[in-house]
């Protein structure tokens, strides 16, 4: 079963169009949504959660159509947004009490254990937390009600590298169970590179690509060559080229340029930047 299936999802704002988005997140996998600011990452997550009204398309979550079952499905979805959204005067214990009366599957012991593990004081008001602590608390809530799908919108932005690493570890631990899946958006691509099985590129509301990370890294490469060598490359192998007086940096399909030199591995971030520039 797929954790999330999005077909033809469309949303139109003045000056923005999420254009017939299709993506599938298989159960047990982590998918990273990569895109520049305003690419449509948050819009996609909000549409999945029915926080925005879609103009077209279908969304299936954990095998059920979201139009009819979204409130029920939210029992199985853990969400962390860019701003966690917990009232500032509440402390960790009070948040636990609120969630106990919110989720049918709330696991109080697990929540308390996570607070202890993450060194989050349960009596301190949320407003006195650092951004990292706020985010960790948001994740602790999302992980304490037997969620099967996590939807995370920029959970690592604004966090220092140590906390980011902790968050990435927590998320990796979550997917140890085979029916647990994550859709995570971020423009810190290095985090996604560590974490994700699938990568989806969004650019100006359009899907650039959606593929397994390992396949992407095997498929694309970065070739450094002279301008003369560039002229000799097969046109259909060149996806993007950056020329300078001393040569060229070329994003290529590795298989298609095997006779023209060795293409270096390309990082997800470089790949996204090149593909986004090509798509402009």
């Amino acid at each position, binding site marked *: 079963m797929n954790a999330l299936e999005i077909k033809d999802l469309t949303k139109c704002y003045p000056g923005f169009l999420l254009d017939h988005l299709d993506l599938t997140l298989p159960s047990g996998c982590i998918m990273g949504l990569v895109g520049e600011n305003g690419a449509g990452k948050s819009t996609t997550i*909000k549409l999945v*959660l*029915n*926080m*925005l*009204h879609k103009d077209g398309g279908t969304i299936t979550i954990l095998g059920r159509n979201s139009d009819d079952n979204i*409130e*029920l499905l*939210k*029992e199985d*979805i853990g*969400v962390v*947004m860019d*701003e*966690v*959204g*917990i*009232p*500032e*005067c*509440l402390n960790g214990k*009070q948040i636990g*009490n*609120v*969630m*106990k*009366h*919110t*989720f*049918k599957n709330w696991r109080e012991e697990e929540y308390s254990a996570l607070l202890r593990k993450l060194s989050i004081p349960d009596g301190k008001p949320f407003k006195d937390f650092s951004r990292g602590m706020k985010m960790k608390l948001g994740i602790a809530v999302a992980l304490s009600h037997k969620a099967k799908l996590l*939807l995370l919108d920029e959970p690592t932005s604004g966090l220092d590298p140590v906390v980011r690493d902790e968050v990435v570890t927590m998320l990796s631990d979550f997917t140890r169970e085979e029916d647990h899946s994550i859709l995570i958006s971020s423009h810190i691509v290095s985090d996604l590179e560590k974490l994700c099985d699938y990568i989806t590129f969004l650019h100006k509301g359009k899907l650039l690509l959606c593929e397994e990370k390992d396949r992407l890294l095997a498929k694309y490469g970065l070739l450094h060559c002279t301008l003369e060598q560039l002229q000799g490359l097969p046109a259909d192998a060149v996806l993007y080229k950056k020329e300078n007086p001393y040569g060229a940096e070329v994003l290529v399909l590795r298989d298609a340029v095997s006779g023209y030199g060795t293409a270096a591995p390309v990082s997800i971030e470089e790949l996204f930047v090149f593909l986004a520039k090509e798509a402009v």
Partner: protein
Amino acid sequence: MKGLLLKDWYMMKSYCRVYLLITIIFLMVSCMNENKFYVFYPCLLCGMIPVNLLSYDERSGWIQYSSTLPYTKMQFVSSKYLIGLFSLLAVITVTGILQAVKMNVVDGGLAISEYVITLLLMCVITTTCLSLCMPFVFLLGVEKGRIVYFVMIGIFFAGIAIATRLPIGVLESGFTPGLLLAGSVLFGIGICALSWYLSVVFYRKREL
């Protein structure tokens, strides 16, 4: 919906202590003063509690976050109306006890019809102000909705000013206490139900 109510209760404990203080001060003054403003004002103030809670919700991002939790928009709206009604009930209870004590000790006896009508009017006026304001809050957001609430209070005090200039006979001839009681209750329930319905419709249409 229990979780939403519990969260609002925690927030009231933190942010609404000043309302309690104002209520106590105004009610104490009302025991020494015949001006009905001191009786009515705490009630009108408590009608602001749901709007203020929504304002805190907007500022903290809870409105967005709560929509990721397994609550319907109807439950979210209903929780705010319930908080408003609970607050009103609490203020009316305190006011009722204090006014009964005042009437017995200061005025020399409890004038039942005046007592009941005063409390009832307080309920109806607060419910009306709240009911007229809440759909605008859910449609336009808290800040614009709050302006509507103050306009309602202004209209209410203008109404009082006009009513106090009417000859007493005009009011007494048209309304018996029984009729006023029944009419007020029906009006209060009706406008609250209509307001709740409109708020749910507006909030469902709102994108978060």
